[in-house]
C-alpha cells in the first residue's frame, strides 16, 4: 500500500502527539507553549529531543509581532542538531501545511523522524494600554485583507464569515435556532474532553441569547481566541517499527485553494468547492469513500461555516446539515462523529495550533485513547483545515 507521499517503508505516519491545555496562558510565550507540547509528545512514547531530525514550525500568529528567522532560535532552545528546519505560513492552514511538509521530507527519505509544532498566545495582547507600536501592528494586520476589503475597516475574518452565514440562511431558509444547534452539540463533545476550554453544557436558548458579534453570528457560534500549542511527531513506517511505536499512516492528502483573498467574490459564499475538491482528492488517493470514514475533525471556525463545510465535503445535501446535526448524525454514536474534540467553538481555537489539535484528536480516536468520547472501532479518520474566511482547504486521511 502506498500513501500520497512515498511508498513502502518510507511512507509517513504519525507516531505521537501532545498539547498544552487550551485557554488562557497569560504569562507564557508561544515558544514556551510549543516546547511544552513537544515535550508531551516525546514523553508519550519515550522519545528524547535528540531523536528528532527535523522541526516544522508556523508563525506565532498575526496580532503578535514576530522577529524574522525564528526557527533557528527554537532550534537553539531545543539544543538539537537538525537536518530540516522549516517555517510554513498560509493563514489558518499553516500548521496543516507544516505537517504536510514534514510528511514530504519523511517520504523522500531526507529525514526519518520530524516534529511539527504550532503555538499561539495572543489573548492578552492589546488588553492593557495600546501604544503606537500596537496600533501600527493593527494597521499591518489590516493589510492582510487586501486592497478590496481592508479599506472598509475589516480587521478580522468575522464579518467575512458573517456574510457567508447570512447568505447560507437566506438560500436555504434556515432559522437562527437551526444554526444554534451545532454549538450545543459540540459542547456535549467538549464536556467529555479534558483538553477543551469550554465544557459547561449550553442550550439553543443560551446561544441565541449571546451577543451578536457580526450579524447573524452570535458569540456562542464563534470560537474563543485561545492560547495553546500542539505538536505531532511524524516518522517513516520503518523508523516506527524499529522503535516499536504504533504508527497511524497518512494514506490520503487533498488540497484546493480558491484564487481569492478572504471573500470569494467569484465562487459565491455558500458552497466551498475547495472543500469538496480537497476531500474528494484525499479520499481518492486513499482509495476510500466518505462512508469509510469513522471520525472526522473539521476546522469550522464559526458555526455556519462548519455546517457549510459538512455539506461541501459531501456528507449532506445543500442546506441539510443543520437537520442532520440536530438528529445526532455528527455526534459520537451517530453516522459520522465530527469534531469529537468539541471543535473550534468549544475545544478552543489557537489558529496556529488548531490543525495539529485536530490531528491529535483523530489520532487519539484511531489509537483508542479518546476515553469517554471514544468512537467505537474507529480505524479511518479525516482531518480538514482551511485558510481565509474560508477559501482554501487541505484534507488528510489517517489510518491506524
Amino acid at each position, binding site marked *: 500500500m502506498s500513501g500520497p507521499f512515498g511508498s513502502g517503508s518510507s511512507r509517513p505516519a504519525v507516531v505521537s502527539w501532545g498539547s498544552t491545555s487550551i485557554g488562557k496562558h497569560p504569562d507564557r510565550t508561544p515558544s514556551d507553549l510549543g516546547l511544552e507540547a513537544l515535550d508531551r509528545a516525546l514523553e508519550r512514547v519515550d522519545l528524547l529531543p535528540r531523536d528528532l531530525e527535523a522541526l516544522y514550525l508556523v508563525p506565532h500568529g498575526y496580532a503578535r509581532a514576530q522577529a524574522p528567522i525564528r526557527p533557528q532560535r527554537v532550534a537553539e532552545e531545543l539544543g538539537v542538531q537538525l537536518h530540516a528546519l522549516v517555517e510554513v505560513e498560509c493563514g489558518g492552514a499553516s500548521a496543516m501545511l507544516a505537517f504536510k511538509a514534514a510528511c514530504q521530507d519523511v517520504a523522500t527519505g531526507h529525514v526519518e523522524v520530524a516534529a511539527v509544532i504550532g503555538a499561539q498566545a495572543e489573548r492578552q495582547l492589546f488588553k492593557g494600554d495600546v501604544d503606537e507600536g500596537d*496600533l501600527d501592528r*493593527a*494597521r*499591518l494586520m*489590516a*493589510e492582510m485583507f*487586501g*486592497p*478590496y*476589503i*481592508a*479599506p*472598509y*475597516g*475589516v*480587521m*478580522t475574518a*468575522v*464579518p467575512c464569515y*458573517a*456574510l*457567508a452565514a*447570512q*447568505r447560507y440562511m*437566506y438560500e436555504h431558509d434556515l432559522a437562527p435556532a437551526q444554526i444554534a444547534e451545532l454549538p450545543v452539540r459540540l459542547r456535549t463533545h467538549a464536556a467529555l474532553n479534558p483538553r477543551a476550554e469550554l465544557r459547561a453544557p449550553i442550550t439553543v436558548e443560551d446561544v441565541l441569547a449571546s451577543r451578536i*458579534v*457580526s*450579524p*447573524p453570528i452570535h458569540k456562542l457560534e464563534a470560537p474563543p481566541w485561545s492560547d495553546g500549542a500542539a505538536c505531532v511527531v511524524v516518522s517513516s513506517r520503518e523508523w516506527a517499527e524499529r522503535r516499536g511505536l504504533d504508527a497511524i499512516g497518512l494514506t490520503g492528502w487533498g488540497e484546493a485553494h480558491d*484564487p481569492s483573498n478572504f*471573500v470569494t*467574490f*467569484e465562487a459565491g*459564499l455558500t458552497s466551498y468547492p475547495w472543500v469538496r475538491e480537497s476531500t474528494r482528492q484525499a479520499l481518492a488517493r486513499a482509495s476510500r469513500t466518505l462512508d469509510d470514514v469513522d471520525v472526522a475533525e473539521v476546522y469550522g471556525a464559526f458555526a455556519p461555516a462548519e455546517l457549510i463545510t459538512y455539506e461541501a465535503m459531501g456528507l449532506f445535501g445543500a442546506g441539510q446539515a443543520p437537520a442532520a446535526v440536530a438528529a445526532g448524525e455528527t455526534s459520537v454514536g451517530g453516522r459520522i462523529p465530527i469534531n469529537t474534540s468539541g471543535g473550534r467553538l468549544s475545544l478552543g481555537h489557537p489558529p496556529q495550533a488548531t490543525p495539529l489539535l485536530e490531528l491529535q484528536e483523530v489520532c487519539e480516536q484511531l489509537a483508542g485513547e479518546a476515553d469517554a468520547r471514544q468512537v467505537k472501532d474507529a480505524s479511518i479518520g479525516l482531518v480538514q483545515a482551511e485558510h481565509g474566511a474560508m477559501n482554501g482547504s487541505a484534507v488528510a486521511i489517517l489510518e491506524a
Partner: protein
Amino acid sequence: MSATDPSLKYVLRDMGSAAREFYRRLAEGRLATTRCPSCDELRFPPRERCAACGGRTAWRELSGRGTVYAFTQQERGLRFIAPDVVGVVELEEGVRVFGLLATPFESLSIGQPVELEPRADDAGLTLLVFRPG
C-alpha cells in the same frame, strides 16, 4: 492621493498595479474591472493578465448598479466608518464587489437594488459606497 488617516498605510504601500489602477479610476468616479478580450471573461478583482489564456486584459467600466448579495455589521476596530454596514453587491454586469452600504442595517434586504456613490476617504482612497437605487 494624500492621506491624513494612516490606517491604510500598509494597504497603500503594498497595493499592486491592478489595484492602483482600479482606485485611480474610482477617484475619477469610474468603477471598472478587467476583462479578457479573447475569452471575454469579466473578472473581479481586476487582474493584468487572463489566467485562462495568458493574454493582457482590458479595463471595462461598470454601471455601478446592482443588488445586495449579503450584508453585515462589524464590531468596531481600528478603522470605523459610520454607518459601518458592509456587504457584497452583485453588479448588473455579473461581478460581485465589497463595499459600504450607506443605509441602516435594519432597512436592508438581500436582493435590494443599490447604486454606487463613490466617496473619497481621508485614508487616501475613494471607496465603493452603495445607496438604495
